[in-house]
Structure formats: C-alpha cells, structure tokens
C-alpha cells in the first residue's frame, strides 16, 4: 500500500508517518493573540555581514556614507552567496566587529547604520513581469534581493533554486509546519499575507519548472489554514494544494516533511531535489514575491518575541539589525525571572549571551525563558540504555550507542552509527532520564566529524600535490640525465669525428712528408 501510494500519488495526497518525534506543548497561542506589529525604528541598526551559509559578504559602503533603504551594503564575491541591504535610510556610522547572532557564538563585522528617520526606499530597478519573464531573469531578481531560507538554514535562495532547476523539480513543498514550540511567525504570516505566499509559490514554480506546489501546515493552525484556503480559492488554479500534517516535532524538518508527504526518504547526504522536490519555507516564498513583484530586498522579517520571560508576547515585523533589547522593550520588557535569551525555539535555538545581539535573517523567534522552564542544574547520570532516545529519534539512530562513540572521539564508529544523519533535533536529549546532554554531544561530534573530513580532504590534496611534485621532479631528473647523456654522446661523437679528421690529416701529412723526402 505504502509503495503504490508513494509511487503513484502526488506528494501530500496521502500522509505518512515519520519515526519517533515528540508531541510538545505548543505555547503558540500567547503570541498569536494580536496581529503582527511593526517594531519601532531603533537608534542604531547593527547589520551583520555574515547572515547566510557560506562565506561572509564584503562591504561596498564606507563610514559616513548616506544610504537609502534597500541599498546594497555588502555582497559576496561570485554569484552564489548572500547580499546584505540597508534596512532603513540613514548614514553608515561604522563598520565594526560586534556580536552577530550566529550559532557559532562568534563576533563578526557589522555595518552600523544611524537612521535618518525617513525610512526612504531606494528606487527599485526595472521589474520583470514574472508571468512572462525568463526563469533566469527571476532567479537573478531573487539573488539580487539577498534572499536566504528563512526557516533557519539561511541557504541562499537563489543558489538553491538554480541548483534545483538544473536537477528538475516536479513539486514545490512550502513548509509552513512550524513545529518548534513558542514560534508563530510563519503562522502569523500565513494568516495575514496568504496571497504573498501563493504568489511566491507560483514564481518559484516557474523558476524551477515545478508543475505543482504543496503547502504543508500543522493541523493545529486553524486560522492560518482558513486564510490560505480562502486565498487559494480567490487566486484560482488547481496547482497548489494545502495539506494539514499532524503537529509532531520535528515535523517541520525538511527530511521529516518529505517523508510525511511522500513516504520517501531523502537519501543520506542528499537533498530533497534528489527526489524531484524543492522545499522552501513559507516566509521565503513571501519574500520571493516581494523581491520579484516589488523589487524589495530582504531587509525585514517577522520575529516572534515570546516566552514566559516576556511580558507581552507578540509577533513583530523587525528590521534586520535591530537590537533584540529593543524588541523585548517593545513587548513590555522582561518578566520577573527571565533567565535565558534564545534565538530560535527551545529545541534547536541557541542561547544568546546578551540582548545587544541584532536581529538577523535567520531570527524567527526571540524566546525568553525563566528558570522554571529550563532543566535544573542536575548531575548527569550514566546511561541506563532505556532506549527512549532511540524511540523518539526521527533518523532512526541509536543515540545511546552514538553518544558513547562521540565521547570516545571514535569517529569511525560514530560515522557508522549515523552521526552524519543526525538532524540535531534534540528529541533524544529531552527524553533522556539520565540528563545526558545528547544534542550538545552530537553537535560537537558532527563538527568534529566535519573538521576531520576537511582535514582529511586537505591532507589528501596536500598528498596529491606532493606526489605530483615528486613525479615532476623525478621526470625532470630523468629528462636532465637523458639530456646530459645525449650531450655526452654528442660530444664523444664529435670528438671521435674530430679525432678521425685529425688522424686523417696526420696521415695525409705523413704521406706528403714521405713523398717530399727523398
């Protein structure tokens, strides 16, 4: 049954289960009570140059320079990486090293903008009519706008779409299954701007040549579902389906969503494009529409500001670069007992050391938790192999064995046990009765593995270079030897010839003497 369904049916026509996962308390209603509000313009904006996967962008503005909203601030070399635009009009106060709200915890260069308060847009370039435009032209518009995946992976959208269009895509999956607790920015976007999402979907479909789209939302998102449904009816066409998937964490993970919608698994180390699918976040689709229709680059996004440590949780439309402190202040400030500031959700978000950190393109949620929400500082106990971690693992790993391999830095074993296939969702960690920080170990292990692989790659390259050099030297040596030998032979030949000539001359002379002497 499974087989027939996944072969014949369209993605989303029949829902499947993914292994493991957790049903978590949602906590979403608190931030969905009121419409999305525009965050006020801060006194300074700190726009990091590294907000996308891949290398950071290089600034193309200078301190003191006046910029308009949407003006290019920085870009990466080549045509792949991210582009950073001014979130408001004003002057460049500095380009300084500051916190950049990156999971690595590093600091990095930021363009500091002093707003002029006018918020004047730069004139957009000529806009293509997306219905008749060449897909390459649309791709270029997306790339220019500095779009990245807004679900959190921040992979440059233009690059992703171009690679997808080269592979051939039959279905575009729009991911609205925002499965982490507390986060509701996508849900609010779907409620308030469903038509932008549909428009973005059609543009992306045109770019990659997909014949249809599936919008996946969680079955708990009633209002968002109704809004999308109404927008779909109004827009007409039968190429976009709305599918409600059960709200099980980490349903919104790309791999899990593909499995739920198609019953198929994304190959290890591969991408959904291997199955003819392209996954994009719904917010990315809306940003695509904005970039292509209005020529507006990505300079703001919806951020959920929520948690038991925030007085008035809500969703804010915030400019990239706004200090998080400003957002929290706009939401009534911190509640008593606010203990942890998290960028992202409670399962996979990372804790920020300070609220001076800016909003970045990846920032879907600012979550403030109190000590009650967090794990108490408690002794880690030994693993009792209860197997709960394996039961909830969506990648079907055996975390109890994997953690041992990672702790012992046994990378071979860790790789065999599937460390590369860990999606770092943290389910195993939450259910562990021994309170082993499994997710932290696996993140550490995965970066260890990546480093080791990079190291091996470098070593292989170095060896290749070394061997090539050795071969070249050896070749040169034999060549030289051959030439020397040749020269010697030449020399000897010539000598012999000359000797012969000299001898002949000598003989001739001798004969002459003989003849002359009586």
């Amino acid at each position, binding site marked *: 049954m*499974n087989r027939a369904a996944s072969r014949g049916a369209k993605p989303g026509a029949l829902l499947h289960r993914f292994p493991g996962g957790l049903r978590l308390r949602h906590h979403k209603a608190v931030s969905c009570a009121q419409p999305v509000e525009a965050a006020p313009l801060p006194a300074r904006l700190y726009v990091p140059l590294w907000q996308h996967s891949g290398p950071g962008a290089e600034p193309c503005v200078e301190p003191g320079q006046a910029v308009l909203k949407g003006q290019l601030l920085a870009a990466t070399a080549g045509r792949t990486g991210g582009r950073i635009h001014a979130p408001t009009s004003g002057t460049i106060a500095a380009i300084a090293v500051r916190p950049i709200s990156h999971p690595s915890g590093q600091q990095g260069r930021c363009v500091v903008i002093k707003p002029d308060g006018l918020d004047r847009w730069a004139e957009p370039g000529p806009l293509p009519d997306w219905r008749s435009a060449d897909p390459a032209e649309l791709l270029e518009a997306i790339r220019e706008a500095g779009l990245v995946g807004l679900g959190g992976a921040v992979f440059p959208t233009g690059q992703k779409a171009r690679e997808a269009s080269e592979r051939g895509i039959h279905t575009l999956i729009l991911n609205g299954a925002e499965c982490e607790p507390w986060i509701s920015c996508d849900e609010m976007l779907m409620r308030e701007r469903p038509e932008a999402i549909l428009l973005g979907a059609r543009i992306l479909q045109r770019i990659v040549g997909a014949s249809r789209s599936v919008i996946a939302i969680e079955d708990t998102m009633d209002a968002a579902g109704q809004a999308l449904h109404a927008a779909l009816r109004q827009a007409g066409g039968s190429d976009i389906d709305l599918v409600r998937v059960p709200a099980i964490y980490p349903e919104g993970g790309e791999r899990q969503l593909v499995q739920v919608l198609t019953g198929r698994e994304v190959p290890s180390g591969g991408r959904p494009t291997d*199955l003819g699918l392209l996954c994009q976040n719904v917010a990315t689709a809306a940003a695509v529409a904005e970039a292509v229709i209005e020529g507006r680059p990505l300079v703001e996004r919806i951020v959920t500001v929520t948690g038991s440590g925030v007085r008035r949780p809500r969703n804010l439309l915030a400019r990239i670069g706004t200090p998080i402190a400003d957002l929290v202040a706009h939401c009534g400030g911190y509640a008593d007992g606010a203990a942890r500031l998290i960028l992202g959700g409670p399962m996979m978000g990372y804790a920020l050391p300070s609220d001076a950190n800016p909003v970045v393109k990846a920032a879907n949620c600012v979550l403030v*938790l109190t000590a009650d929400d967090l794990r108490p500082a408690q002794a880690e*106990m030994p693993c009792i192999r209860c197997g709960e971690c*394996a039961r909830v693992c969506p990648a079907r790993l055996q975390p109890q064995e994997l953690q041992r391999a990672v702790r012992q830095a046994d990378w071979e074993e860790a790789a065999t046990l599937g460390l590369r296939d860990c999606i770092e969702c943290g389910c195993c*960690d939450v259910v562990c009765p021994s*309170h082993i920080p499994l997710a932290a170990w696996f993140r550490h292990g995965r970066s260890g593995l990546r480093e080791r692989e990079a190291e091996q790659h470098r070593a292989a390259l170095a060896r290749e270079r070394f061997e090539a050099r050795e071969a070249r030297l050896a070749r040169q040596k034999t060549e030289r030897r051959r030439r020397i030998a040749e020269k010697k032979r030449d020399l000897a030949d010539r000598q012999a010839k000359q000797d012969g000539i000299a001898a002949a001359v000598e003989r001739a002379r001798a004969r002459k003497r003989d003849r002359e002497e009586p």
Partner: protein
Amino acid sequence: MTRRFETGPAPHFAPRSTVAGVMRQVIYALLPALLAQAWFFGPGVLLQAVLAILFALGFEASMLGLRGRPLRPFIGDGSAVVTALLFAVCVPPLAPWWVAAVGMFFAIVVAKHLFGGLGHNLFNPAMVGYVAVLISFPVSMTAWLPPVAATGLAPDAGQAAAAILAGQLPADGSWDALTAATPLDRLRTAVASGQSLAEVRQAPVFGQLGGLGWEWIACWYALGGLWLLWRGIIAWHVPAAMLSTVAVLASVAWVLDPAHSPTPAEQLLSGAAMIGAFFIATDPVSGCASPRGRLLFGVGVGLVTVVIRRWGAYPDGVAFAVLVMNAFAPLIDRYTRPRIYGHGGNPR
C-alpha cells in the same frame, strides 16, 4: 541598556523524567505483587525485602565510597532498591538472613560495581545475586512455604523474624510442615520420574490454573507490568516475545504429550514467568535496546526458560535464561540496528 544572560546548550527544556523517577515507578509496580505474596505466603517476604534493601544500600554506599563516587545521586537513584526487591520476592519467605546478605553482595558488589556501576553491568544484578545463592545454598533456597490457604499454617511476623534472623521455628511447627516444593518443582519431579501429572495436581499447592497463590501473584505482576507499559517505562517487545514464546512452546509440548507436560497456564502462572517478562528481562541496562533486538531477546529468554524447566536441573529457568541472554545482548544489538533514515528503503 543591555542585559546579559547565562547561556547553555539546546534543547532549552526541563527534562521529562529522571532515573530515580523511572526506578520509583518500577517499585510502585512491584508493590501489589509483593503484598499478594505476603497475603499468600505470610509476612516473611516483607522482612526479606527490608533485609535485602538494607544490605543493598549498605553495599551500594560502601562501593560508591570505595570508587570515589558521589553518594547522594547514586543512592537516591533507586536502582539498588529495585534490585533488592526483585531478589527478595525470589527467595523463600523464611530463608535465613545471610541469604539476603550473600545475594546482595553478589548483586551489588560483583554484578554491578565491579562492572562499573549503574548502567555498566552486563548481567542483571538481581538475577546474579539470586543464582549465586541458589547454587550456593540449594537446601535453603528450595524450601518454599506452602501457601497459607493450603495448610492453614501462617507464621506471623514475629515467628517469621525469628525464623529468618535466628533460625528458630515456631513452637508448634516443624520445617517439614513449613516447607514444600514449589508447584513447578513438583511438576518437574513428576515428569522426571514418569508420574502422571494429573495425580500430582491433586496436591494442595495447586490452584485453578497454576500454583495455589502463585497464579494470583503472577497476575499482579502482569498488572504491574501493564501499568509500566502504559507509563512508557518498559517497551512491549520483551514481555510479548517472552510470554508468547513460553506459551507457544508449552502448548506444543502439552498438545503432543498432555499426560507429562505442564499446561501452558501452569508454565505462565506458576513460576517466575510473569515477573521475568515484565520486570527482569525488561531491565534496560543488561538487555537489548533496539526493537528487533528486544524481540529476539524476549524469544531467547522464553526459549531457554522452557528448555531449563523441561530438561534442566532446576525447576524454574527464568533467572538462568535472563543471564544467558544478557551475555548475548550486545551481539544482538549490534546485528539488529534499525535502518537509518536515508540509507536505502525508498520504494522504487
């Protein structure tokens, strides 16, 4: 005005359970059967439980001290108490106190701490302790009380204490009156000597389906086990695999030779099958972790149990079966790892 925060790794979540919580629930699940055993065989079992717990905690504390481990979290985790309870319900109710001492020494010191403590033991500690005393003191260990209902003799708490601690019998009793072979033992002896089982079943130690009293205790174990299943403390694989293996093999033997084979009900309800299936073979530390591994493990325990009961030198085989399968658990786990996401398996 910036505010600084403590950081920490994701997930930022309060843990859902603790080792101590897991152990506590196992203890709760054992209590009904423990009380049932006290009801059918007198209060001796409760005294055995207290003794075993005291010895277990004493050995646990000393070993933690010797190994330089913190006392509080490990004494409080409840694992030693679970081991002690599982041991106590297996020994005869009036067994002398040093049985508990020796058993807990082997369980806690040898099987647990010499292998690395909580989470590192290869073998089920309670069963190591039980088998150690079973082999060392066969006379004390096979002298079960007949159920109170069968004889009307019921040593009260004081008499039980005197018997356990000082080896003194009640004034009006004798060891002969107070000890009896277990129902499984009787069945095995009968089978070995070629007696008809119908005759043996006339003995007062037999009840409706299995041993008198035993059948009810087994039901309470099953009920406690089902509660653990419902709470998600244990998985269904081991109990289901073990019990169905025992049931199927017993049925086959019984159908082929009803005169000389115990009924499937007797196999399931007379000895340690239920406690073994729900409380002993499900020990996660010494068992298998993968679902398929757990099924194999359960089948193995059931198989070895039936084989020992039929052809072995001991009337019940659960303890040995669990230990044998413990030895195979790492190997089974290695060969039953589930297919990882994305590694094949897509229908073409």
